[in-house]
């Protein structure tokens, strides 16, 4: 048998166990993904991905490197168009939509490799996130009509409020590129919140942070969920963070879901242990 050939992984029956927290169970899930898949040429990066996320849930997406986690995010935000499957956002099918339309419908994201507008100020970064919240047109901007001043004033106040979540309002006029690494990651979250999302996707928010910063981040993620009442889905390798704040966790390996459930279920799941640590020799 070729050493590259993998044994078929036993799939946990999906979509059960349902990982939607009880308080959200009688509402339509914010996100329902069924049989999502994408092929790059002959390579199947993600296959038969199913997931539902509740209105105010914090969900985790974990898996070894190259499992297809970021690809799932890129599929949800339509950076890639899926080959198979459907993505229902708030009960509406997103087929054929692009990144911008999906964002307007309520998905905001951060990036694994930080993508800030580095040469602009922190405040401008957040104001760009608030772009679609302002509704004046170009002529009123050029003529500096009252509608311009009003929208800009409200947006600026709102931006400073959002920055204050992370106590960053003092840095408002610093260049985004000059911020320390952790602050840049936080700014990305603030910018994403500016677009008024219903579902926030965080791609490795704790990458490069020290343990105390991570602990603070965990608090802040919960706080964001509580204050904004939105769903958050995060990719993370830091198991303390994932097990600490996620209510439902989905484990990917080789593009397939191998386990789903509460943090306790996941920690006990033999498939997950196998994916992360490998099998015992005598099992082969």
């Amino acid at each position, binding site marked *: 048998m070729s050493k590259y050939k993998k044994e078929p992984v036993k799939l946990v029956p999906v979509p059960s166990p349902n990982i939607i927290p009880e308080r959200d169970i009688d509402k339509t899930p914010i996100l329902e993904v069924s049989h999502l898949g994408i092929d790059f040429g002959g390579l199947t990066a993600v296959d038969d991905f199913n997931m539902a996320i509740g209105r105010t849930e914090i969900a985790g997406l974990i898996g070894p490197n190259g499992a297809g986690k970021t690809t799932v995010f890129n599929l949800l*935000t339509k*950076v890639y168009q899926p080959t198979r499957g459907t993505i229902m956002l708030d009960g509406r099918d997103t087929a054929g939509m*692009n*990144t*911008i339309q999906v*964002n*307007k419908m309520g998905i*905001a*994201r951060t*990036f694994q490799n930080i*993508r*800030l*507008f*580095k*040469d*602009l100020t922190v405040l*401008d970064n957040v*104001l*760009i*996130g*608030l*772009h*679609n*919240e*302002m*509704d*004046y047109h*170009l002529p009123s*901007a*050029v*003529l*500096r009509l009252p509608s*311009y*001043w*009003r*929208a*800009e004033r*409200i*947006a600026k*106040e*709102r931006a*400073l*409020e959002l920055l*204050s*979540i992370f106590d960053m*309002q*003092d*840095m*408002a*006029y*610093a260049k985004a590129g000059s911020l320390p690494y952790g602050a840049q990651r936080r700014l990305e979250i603030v*910018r*994403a919140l*500016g*677009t*008024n999302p219903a579902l926030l996707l965080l791609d490795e928010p704790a990458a490069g942070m020290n343990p105390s910063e991570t602990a603070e981040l965990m608090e802040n993620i919960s*706080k964001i969920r509580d*204050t*904004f*009442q939105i769903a958050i889905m995060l990719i993370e390798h830091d198991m303390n963070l994932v097990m600490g704040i996620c209510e439902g966790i989905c484990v990917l390996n080789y593009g397939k879901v191998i386990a789903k459930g509460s943090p306790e279920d996941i920690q006990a799941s033999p498939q997950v242990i196998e994916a992360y640590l490998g099998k015992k020799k005598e099992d082969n």
Partner: protein
Amino acid sequence: MKNNEKIIPMPLRYLINIVLFVVFLLVMNNLIVSGTIPKYYAGVISFIGVNIILAVSLNIATGYLGQLPLGHAGFMAIGAYTSALIMKAASGSATIFPFALIAGGLIAALFGLIIGIPALRLKGDYLAILTLGFGEIIRVILLNIDNVLGFTLTNGAAGLQKIPKTTNFLITFIMVGITCYVIHTMMKSRHGRAILSIRENEIASESCGINTTYYKTLGFVVSAFFAGIAGGLYAGNIGILSPSAFNFMKSIEILVMVVLGGMGSMFGSVLSATVLTALPEALRRFEDYRMVVYSLVLVIVMIFKPSGLMGTYDFSLNGLLDKLILKFRGNHTEKGAMPQEKKGEAAVRKKEGKLK
């Protein structure tokens, strides 16, 4: 926190700038009309004005949008020929001239739209080559249109002659003022920020819900519009148009002004357009060496300040005044008073609905 407090209130800030600009216009105009500044130099000053508009408009596409179009002279040519033909038809009536200018700008903007939509799907060098091709196509069409369609509009290589010289210092620099004002206000709005965000990171920009295709095209069209205006002013200044004036080298000349001034700095564009237009004239005495000096200036600036004279810094008179007032008062303690609201209030505000 960096000092960003605005001490001078908003309407006053605009008023100061407008008053100073009007004073500048009147003083210069008086000097020119009374003959204190010789006619030759007055002509050079008008060309500085035209070049400022060209550089500032190209700066939208290169500095703010982060693209590299090489066909700016093409848009200028369209504007120049359009307004020149209208002015000839109107036999030099001064009241028609503003409309001729705007018509030139609009036709150039239309071409900007036609070129921009396909071109902006490309990036970097590919876009450069495409726009370069566009500029050359315009020039060649202007050169040959008589023979092709039986028109006698552009007179081919001989060029348009006896265009009414309706422009003067005042009109040119009023247009410079309007151009700078419009571009400044556009860039300091949500539309301008959207354009900047495309330069910084297009993927992040899309994920913020910004329609990048729309804003790229918008930047390109506005850039073309003002190039068309500059073309119209050029035609009115020089009185004779030939296609060879709008060749590839003209596009490069404008690009050099933008790069030398600092991409993304309007003040830089204005400064370097002034310097690079005046320099060859100032060096006319050293006829043999002037292009050597011109090139040397470029080389030296690029070696010692690769980001251009001004980088992305933009001069603000009021900002300077603010700083002076602060220094004069000597109290730095008062600044940095931020609205310290409780964190939960952001969410409360959000519940109240979208921003109006």
